[in-house]
C-alpha cells in the first residue's frame, strides 16, 4: 500500500475544513484495495501462530515441541527454552504508556489465553496444527477470577499514571447538612474491544533494517518501543500502518507476540506474519475490566447536589496496574459543593486491562447517570430539570472555568427533537401496544486532551503541496479530516494536496486515542502549512516584482493557492509564480501540535442523549426504538465524519447497555464466549432510529483551531440514557450491565 492517498470520490462545496467531504479512502476500501497489515504477503513469508495457555494461573511444565516440529511445514517452535533474547525484559515498562507483556520470558501463566509458545511454519494451517500438537501440560493453581474471586488492593495510580482519588470540599459536612441521601451500586462487566480487524503483524528484515506492517494507533511510540525491546536503532525501523480496521484502544500498545515475530523473522531470516484469531484477542491485547461502582448523592431541599461520592472497584491483572478510572467520570459533570472520587483494585488472573472506548468515562458515566436519574425520580423532578438544576457552571473538580460548554443548548436541541416535554414522570406509564415504553436521558461528557504531534508541509513548484505526518486512521476518517485541515493551513484546494501518512518515517503525529488525534495532528498540520505560507509571503513581500510587494503591515491572506493583499484584494499572486521568481522548486514548513503549559480552563466536549426503549413485559426483551443525541464539540472539521463518529459512539452505548459482556468460567478462568457468536455487539436491527445532532460551539481556548473531539463522546451518556429509559418503562432500576431480559421479568 502506498503511503499516499489518491484523491477520489468526494463532493465538496466551498473551502476545505467544515465540509462534509466523503472519505478520501472510501473507494479504496469498498473496492478492497486498502491494504491492511495482514493483507501483506512478502515473498517467502512464513506464518506464525501463538499457542495459548489453557489455565489461568500456574506454570507450563511440558510442551511437545518435538511433535509440533515434526509436523510437515513447521519451521520452528519458540518456547521460553529457546526464544531469542529481548534487549529489555517484557516485564519492564519502558515508558509510561507500556504494559508488562508476555514474550515467552518464562514458564509462568498469568491468565488463560496467554501466549506460551510461538509456532512458525510455511503455511497458516501448519502453524495452527503445530500449535495444537504442543499439547501443553501444566502445574495449575486455583485461578482468581472476577470482582468476587480476586484479591483486593489499593492502587497507587489509576488509568495511566493518574492519582486514584480526589477530594474537593468537606464531603462529610456537606453530607450531614443535606436533606436526602441516595446510594446506587452498579456493576459493569468485562468487555473486549473486538475490532473487526484482528491484531496482526508482518515483520521483515533487510540486514539490520526492520520493516513492520502492523495496525497501530501510535506508530511513533511503537517505533520507539520496538527499538527499545529489540535493541535496534529506531532509525532502522519502518512501521507501516495506513489503515486500522478498528482499534478502540487495543492497538495503541505493543504486545509480546509482536516482538517475538520480529525476533523470529531475524532468527529465521524470512518475513513472518502473525494474525491473532478472535479468541486470541481475549487476553494479551487489553480489555475493559469489570467494575462495581458505588455512588452516594446527597441532595438539599431545593434539589441541589451537596455531596457527590463515586467509588469504583475495578478488576486488574495480577501483574500490572491498569485500573479503570470510572469514578473520574463524576468529576466535572454536575455541580456539587463537595466531591470525593476513589478507586480500589482487585487482582485477578486475567490479561491486563487497558483503555477501551472511552475508558473510565463510559463506565463511570453509565453509573453516574443512573444514580442521577434515581435521585431525580425520588425527588419528583423531571430528569432533565434535575440535571439543569445541577448544571456545572464551573468545573467542580478544579474550580476552573470551562473553555466552552454548550451543554444547555445540547439538552434543549436533543430534547426538542426527541419530544421530551411529553414525558410523564411515573415509570410504567407509557405503552405501545402490549409493550412498555420508557424514555430516559443522560449527559455526555468527554475531556479534550492534546498530545504531541509534528508535521511537515512542502509547497511544490506547480503550487500543489504535500503534507506529512504519521497519523493513524482507524476508520474515523483521518485521511480526510486531517487533509482538510492541512489544505486550509496551506490555503490551497484539497484536490491539490497530497497527504502522506500512516508510516513511521514521517513526522510523529502522536497517538490516535483519547479523542485527541484530530485536534493534535490537525494543529501540527495546520501550523506546518502556516509556516510554509509565512515563508512564501516573506519571499513575495520582499520582491519588488511581486504585486504583493509593499503590503507589509497590512499583510496577505492565503486562499485558493494565491496570496492576496489584505489592503487590496485585487492584488494577488499564485504560489507557483512566487516560487518560480524566487527560483525555488520546493518550500518547506514545519509545525507542531501540543498544548502549551498547564491548562487554565477545564476542557470538555458535551452532549445530551435521549433514549426510547420498548420492553416486552412478559419476556424482558429490550429494544432501543429511538436514540437522539445533540453534541457540542468545538469546531466540526467534517460534519459527515463527525456524525459517523457520534453515531458509532452511541451504538457502542447500545452494546454496553444491552449486550456486551465477556464471561469467564470462574473455575477455570477461561472464557465461555470468546467469539463474535457469543460476545454480542449490536447489529443493524438493534438500531432502528438514531440521530446525532451537532451544536455550534466556538472554543477560543481549547487549541488554536478550536477543535475538541468526537471519537468517544457518543458512548458517554448513552448507556445511562438507555438504562434510565428501561427504568421508566418498567420501574425496574438496572443494577448491572448488560441489562438481561431475565432481570426485567
Amino acid at each position, binding site marked *: 500500500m502506498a503511503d499516499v492517498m489518491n484523491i477520489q470520490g468526494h463532493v465538496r462545496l466551498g473551502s476545505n475544513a467544515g465540509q462534509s467531504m466523503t472519505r478520501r479512502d472510501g473507494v479504496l476500501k469498498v473496492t478492497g484495495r486498502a491494504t491492511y497489515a495482514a493483507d501483506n504477503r512478502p515473498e517467502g513469508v512464513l506464518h506464525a501462530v501463538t499457542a495459548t495457555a489453557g489455565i489461568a494461573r500456574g506454570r507450563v511444565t511440558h510442551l511437545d515441541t518435538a511433535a509440533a516440529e515434526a509436523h510437515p511445514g513447521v519451521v520452528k517452535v519458540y518456547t521460553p527454552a529457546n526464544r531469542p533474547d529481548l534487549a529489555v525484559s517484557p516485564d519492564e515498562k519502558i515508558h509510561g504508556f507500556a504494559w508488562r507483556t508476555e514474550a515467552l520470558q518464562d514458564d509462568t501463566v498469568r491468565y488463560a489465553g496467554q501466549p506460551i509458545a510461538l509456532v512458525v511454519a510455511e503455511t497458516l494451517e501448519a502453524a495452527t496444527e503445530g500449535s495444537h500438537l504442543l499439547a501443553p501440560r501444566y502445574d495449575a493453581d486455583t485461578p482468581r477470577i472476577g470482582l468476587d474471586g480476586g484479591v483486593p488492593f489499593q492502587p497507587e495510580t489509576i488509568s495511566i499514571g493518574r492519582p486514584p482519588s480526589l477530594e474537593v470540599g468537606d464531603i462529610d459536612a456537606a453530607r450531614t447538612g443535606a436533606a436526602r441521601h441516595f446510594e446506587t451500586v452498579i456493576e459493569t462487566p468485562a468487555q473486549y474491544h473486538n475490532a473487526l480487524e484482528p491484531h496482526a503483524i508482518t515483520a521483515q528484515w533487510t540486514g539490520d533494517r526492520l520493516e513492520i506492517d502492523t495496525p497501530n494507533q501510535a506508530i511513533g511510540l511503537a517505533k520507539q518501543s520496538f527499538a527499545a525491546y529489540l535493541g535496534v536503532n529506531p532509525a532502522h525501523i519502518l512501521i507501516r500502518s495506513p489503515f486500522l480496521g478498528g482499534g478502540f484502544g487495543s492497538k495503541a500498545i505493543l504486545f509480546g507476540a509482536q516482538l517475538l515475530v520480529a525476533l523470529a523473522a531475524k532468527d529465521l531470516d524470512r518475513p513472518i506474519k502473525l494474525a491473532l484469531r478472535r479468541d486470541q484477542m481475549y487476553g494479551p491485547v487489553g480489555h475493559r475490566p469489570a467494575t462495581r461502582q458505588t455512588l452516594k448523592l446527597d441532595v438539599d431541599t431545593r434539589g441541589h447536589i451537596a455531596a457527590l461520592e463515586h467509588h469504583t472497584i475495578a478488576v486488574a491483572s495480577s501483574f500490572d496496574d491498569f485500573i479503570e478510572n470510572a469514578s473520574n467520570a463524576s468529576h466535572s459533570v454536575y455541580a456539587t459543593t463537595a466531591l470525593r472520587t476513589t478507586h480500589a483494585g482487585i487482582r485477578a488472573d486475567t490479561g491486563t486491562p487497558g483503555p477501551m472506548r472511552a475508558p473510565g468515562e463510559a463506565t463511570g458515566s453509565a453509573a453516574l447517570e443512573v444514580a442521577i436519574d434515581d435521585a431525580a425520580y425520588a425527588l419528583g423532578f423531571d430528569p432533565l430539570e434535575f440535571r439543569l438544576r445541577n448544571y456545572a457552571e464551573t468545573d467542580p473538580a478544579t474550580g476552573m472555568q470551562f473553555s466552552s460548554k454548550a451543554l444547555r443548548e445540547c439538552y434543549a436541541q436533543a430534547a426538542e427533537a426527541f419530544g421530551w416535554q411529553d414525558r410523564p414522570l411515573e415509570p410504567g406509564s407509557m405503552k405501545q*401496544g402490549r*409493550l412498555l415504553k420508557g424514555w430516559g436521558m443522560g449527559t455526555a461528557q468527554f475531556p479534550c486532551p492534546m498530545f504531541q504531534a509534528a508535521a511537515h508541509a512542502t509547497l511544490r513548484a506547480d503550487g500543489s503541496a504535500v503534507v506529512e505526518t504519521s497519523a493513524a486512521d482507524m476508520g474515523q476518517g483521518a485521511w480526510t479530516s486531517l487533509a482538510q485541515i492541512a489544505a486550509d493551513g496551506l490555503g490551497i484546494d484539497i484536490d491539490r494536496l497530497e497527504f502522506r501518512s500512516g508510516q513511521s518515517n514521517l513526522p510523529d503525529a502522536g497517538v490516535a486515542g483519547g479523542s485527541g488525534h484530530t485536534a493534535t495532528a490537525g494543529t501540527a498540520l495546520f501550523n506546518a502549512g502556516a509556516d510554509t505560507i509565512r515563508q512564501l509571503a516573506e519571499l513575495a513581500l520582499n520582491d519588488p516584482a511581486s504585486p504583493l510587494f509593499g503590503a507589509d503591515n497590512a499583510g496577505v491572506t492565503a486562499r485558493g493557492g494565491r496570496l492576496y493583499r489584505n489592503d487590496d484584494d485585487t492584488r494577488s499572486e499564485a504560489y507557483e509564480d512566487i516560487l518560480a521568481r524566487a527560483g525555488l522548486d520546493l518550500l518547506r514548513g514545519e509545525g507542531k501540535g501540543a498544548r502549551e503549559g498547564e491548562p487554565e480552563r477545564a476542557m470538555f466536549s458535551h452532549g445530551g442523549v435521549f433514549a426510547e426503549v420498548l420492553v416486552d413485559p412478559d419476556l424482558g*426483551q429490550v429494544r432501543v426504538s429511538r436514540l437522539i443525541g445533540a453534541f457540542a464539540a468545538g469546531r466540526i472539521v467534517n460534519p459527515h465524519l463527525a456524525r459517523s463518529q457520534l453515531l458509532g459512539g452511541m451504538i457502542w452505548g447500545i452494546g454496553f447497555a444491552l449486550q456486551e459482556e465477556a464471561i469467564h*468460567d470462574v473455575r477455570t478462568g477461561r472464557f465461555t464466549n470468546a467469539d463474535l457468536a*457469543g460476545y454480542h455487539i449490536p447489529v443493524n436491527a438493534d438500531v*432502528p432510529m438514531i440521530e446525532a445532532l451537532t451544536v455550534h460551539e466556538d472554543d477560543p481556548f481549547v487549541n488554536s483551531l478550536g477543535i475538541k473531539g468526537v471519537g468517544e463522546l457518543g458512548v458517554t451518556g448513552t448507556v445511562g440514557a438507555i438504562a434510565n429509559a428501561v427504568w421508566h418503562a418498567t420501574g425496574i432500576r438496572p443494577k448491572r450491565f448488560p441489562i438481561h*431480559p431475565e432481570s426485567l421479568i
Partner: protein
Amino acid sequence: MNLFEYTRAETLDAAMSAATEDGAILAGGTNLLDLMKIGVVNPTRLIDITRLPLHDIEEHDGGLRIGAMVRNADLARHPVILSRFPAVAEALLSGASAQLRNAASTGGNIMQQTRCSYFQDPLSPCNRREPGSGCAAIGGETRNHAVLGWTEACIATHPSDLCVALAAYDAVVEITGPDGLREVPMESFHPLPDANGTGPAPLQSGEIITHIRLPDSGGMARNARYVKLRERTSFAFAIVSAAAALEIQDGRIVQARLALGGVAARPWRARTAEKALADQSPTEEAFARAADLALEGAAPSGDNRAKITLARRIAIRALTRAAAGTPDRLPALPASVFEGDCNG
C-alpha cells in the same frame, strides 16, 4: 488444522460408504468447519455432499419432501413453505445471518451441534464430546442450558430454530444407510441424555440424512407462528423459542401443535399441552394452562431458573400469535418478540 482427506461424493452410495467413524459429511460447513478449527472434532476424512442430488423440494401428498442439501435461505423462501408451513419460514429467517443461511443446509441444520460453550472448549470435560469425561457445564455458565429433559450427564440444548418448527409440524427425517432406509420423527430424532451420557448417536455409521418430509399441515396452515427471545435483535441463538400451530374451526381449537426451543437437547414437543388445547376456545387462559403443561417437570440445570418462566411465556406468545393468524407477509424481523408493536 489437522491434515485430512477431502472427497466429493458423486453418488449417495459413495457418500454412505465414506461416512464412517473417522469421516464426516460436509454440507454447508458452517458448523463442522468451525468445530474442526477449534479442535472439537477431528475427522480424518471429509465427504462433501454438496453435489449430491439432494437439492430439490418436491410436493408430496399435500406436504413437502425437502432434500437435505436445500439451503436454509432457499427453503425459507419456498412458496409452499410460506403458504402452508409459515412457522418453518419464520424459524429459518430468525436464525443466524443471511450469509450463513445462504450456506447452511437443511440436513446440516438438523445435525448441528449444541452451542454449549464447554462442548466447544476441548479442555473442558464433556460427556458429549468425550463420553465418560464428565460435564463441565454443571456448576458453570448455564444461561443457554436445558430446563427440560436433562440429566447430570448432560444439560446441553439443541440450538436449531428450524428443528423446533419442524417438530411442531410432525416432520419426519429420512435416513439412508448401509441397512437401507429408515425414518425417524423430528421430535425424537435428537436423543435426550440418559443417566450416564448423552444418549445414542442420532445416526449410525454410514448413515446420511437424505430428506425431511413435512406432512400436509391441513387446517393449521394459516395459524402458525414461531417466536424467539434473544438479546440481540438478529444474529443470535434463542434464549428460548416456541413454534405453535392451530387448527381453529368455529371458534374452537380442533388440533394444536406446540414445540419449544432452547430448553432441551431436542426441540421439545409439548404433546400434553396440545391435547389439553383440543376442543378449547383459543383464549389466553387456555394457552396459559397449556403452557403450564408444556413446562411440567421443568427444573433449572444451574443458574437458569428464569428460563422456565420465559419458556412458559413464549409458549403463550406463540399460541396467541398463531391464534391471531399468520400475517400475509412475513414480518421484517421474523419471530421477533417486538413484531407488530414497533417498526421492524
